[in-house]
């Protein structure tokens, strides 16, 4: 490269590098204020001492974490035993969120596939239709679900009227009701990413598989699914993670027996009975768990890619 051109070029790129720093500033501000600061605050609060009428005393304490895992406190006079109460709530939440995710996948995948295989000009309309119910507030939708699922509600009336069942099904205040509620709350998060990847799928590949003697089922499993896997995984994460922390559906549809993490956290901050450090600690444990799962997944993906 000629000397003059080189120095001119590097001067220009210096300016550009400086400008780039400043141009990134808004993103850093947003990430800082809305992501890093709240997480940091939550972390700090989880290590503080509770004040009885809500709020905290600025004094370091591990009692929030202690309370989560042990019955009498690890540092008490008597020997401590692991307390399964809160771990069981966690376990139930994972189970419920998992079931809701699988339900969303079973319904969402065919839906996304259906939309992606419509003529191009109609696809936008279908996507639009999918999102319409979500213009209504989540609370209202969940309360409506409660009415739909009641023993004397429209769903049971319908099933009895068509003769499928004799006595109304008891759905409300069961695990199933919570799963249905979560499923309905987050279904579009499953449909949209899968739709995006199926739309990009080259359907000639399915033809090629059929041409090479693969049945429809084998084609789905060995050709289509691997190709749209990123969309499926994105959809599962987008449904599973908010389901895990959800509190509206478990509260309104699950009743007292079907307590989930979200409600537990909510209770720690609401009203006078609250325990802010404990609520923050539960949130931290939940966050750590979700991040760990995501990191393990990301790592496996990278290893799988390196292998191939």
């Amino acid at each position, binding site marked *: 490269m000629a000397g003059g051109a080189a120095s001119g070029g590097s001067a220009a790129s210096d300016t550009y590098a400086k400008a780039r720093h400043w141009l990134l500033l808004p993103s850093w501000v947003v990430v800082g204020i809305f992501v890093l600061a709240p997480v940091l605050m939550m972390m700090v609060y989880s290590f503080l001492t509770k004040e009885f009428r809500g709020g905290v005393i600025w004094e370091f304490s591990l009692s929030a974490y202690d309370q989560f895992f042990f019955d009498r406190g690890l540092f008490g006079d008597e020997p401590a035993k692991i307390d399964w109460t809160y771990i069981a709530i966690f376990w139930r939440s994972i189970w419920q969120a998992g079931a809701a995710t699988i339900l969303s996948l079973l319904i969402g995948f065919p839906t996304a596939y259906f939309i992606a295989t419509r003529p191009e000009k109609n696809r936008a309309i279908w996507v639009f239709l999918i999102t319409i119910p979500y213009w209504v507030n989540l609370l209202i939708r969940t309360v409506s679900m409660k009415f739909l699922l009641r023993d004397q509600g429209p769903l049971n009336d319908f099933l009895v009227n068509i003769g499928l069942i004799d006595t109304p099904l008891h759905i409300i205040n069961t695990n199933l009701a919570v799963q249905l509620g979560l499923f309905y709350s987050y279904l579009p998060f499953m449909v949209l990413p899968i739709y995006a990847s199926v739309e990009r799928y*080259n359907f*000639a*590949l399915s*033809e*090629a*598989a*059929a*041409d*090479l*003697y*693969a*049945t429809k089922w*084998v084609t789905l499993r060995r*050709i289509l699914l*691997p*190709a749209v896997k990123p969309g499926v995984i994105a959809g599962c994460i987008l449904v599973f993670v908010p389901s895990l922390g959800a509190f509206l559906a478990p509260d309104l549809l699950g009743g007292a027996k079907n307590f989930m993490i979200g409600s537990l956290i909510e209770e720690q901050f609401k009203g006078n009975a609250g325990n802010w450090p404990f609520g923050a600690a539960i949130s931290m444990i939940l966050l750590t768990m979700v991040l760990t799962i995501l990191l393990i997944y990301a790592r496996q993906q990278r290893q799988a890619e390196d292998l*191939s």
Partner: protein
Amino acid sequence: MTDASQIAVDVRDAVKRYGDFTALQKISLSIRDNEFFTLLGPSGCGKTTLLRMIAGFEDVSEGGIFLYGEEIENLPPHQRPVNTVFQNYALFPHMTILDNVGFGLEMRGASKSEARRRAGEMLDLVQLSQFASRKPAQLSGGQQQRVALARALAPSPKVLLLDEPLSALDLKLRKAMQIELKHIQRETGITFIFVTHDQEEALTMSDRIAVMSAGRMQQLGAPQDIYEAPRNMFVADFIGETNLLEVSVDAIEAGRATCHLGGGHELTCNAVDEVKRGARVHMSIRPERLFLSEHPTESESLKGTIVENIFIGTDITTIIDLAEGPNFTVRTSNSDRGTKRIFEPGAQAYVNMEHGAARLLVD
């Protein structure tokens, strides 16, 4: 063996409609066992539709398709013992080359190891063994094309369907692949049905060609027949270059037709069954079967003025404006330059036809 078993694919009165639009109008053709058969035509002529009907990707609106005497038009694609080389190859992106090639074998029930062994052999055939463990995206277009070929050949299909497989390759690679495909067809003895819009490709590779246009078959025959004796305007114009003259047929006698041009000039040429006396038809003459001279010769001669000479490497193309007709193109081989005279633009000259060069067209 009966006659029917010598026919690999028999298409009988096949019609394809999309709503009100008829893509194929009553196509009938018999493709022989072990034949390199080409469906040739411009885009939208229905050739790919016909191929996809044989493969099973499009259903048949009317008529039937038979594979070695067995009716197949109602079988789904995965039950038809034919394989396809797709236009954009459609290789499975997440599988290795070896797994791509072995896929069809595995689906037909071969064990994983048997499928791999046979896939390896197929990769040898297309000289890609060293790429067996790569993914399709890591290969060049030409290599991907050969993988697609190996994948389609691996399950030993009764008929191989090729949907414009060479159209994405550059000219040199395309020429090399044309010869390789022809070799592989001879070696394997599998019937090939090849779809292309490239007439040169069709002429080079095929045993027989079906020329198609607007959903109809225009002519079926060996490459030489189609080139030398085009049946109608479309075929004459689509295959190679040609000169067209409008003539009236005055008399037909002993296999020769006497015709006249608009200006009254008389010409004789071989008669064609379907062209009767009194018909106004077109006559087709290939540019390489014409030569120029200063004076009329014993052959059929037409007078004209030279417009321009175009040097195209192997040949020189001369455009001449005929006194009694349109512009004509005359091709003189570069090796004939010593024996045949090249006229300057503006000069008066005569265009002469070799005996049997002119051909009457049906429409």
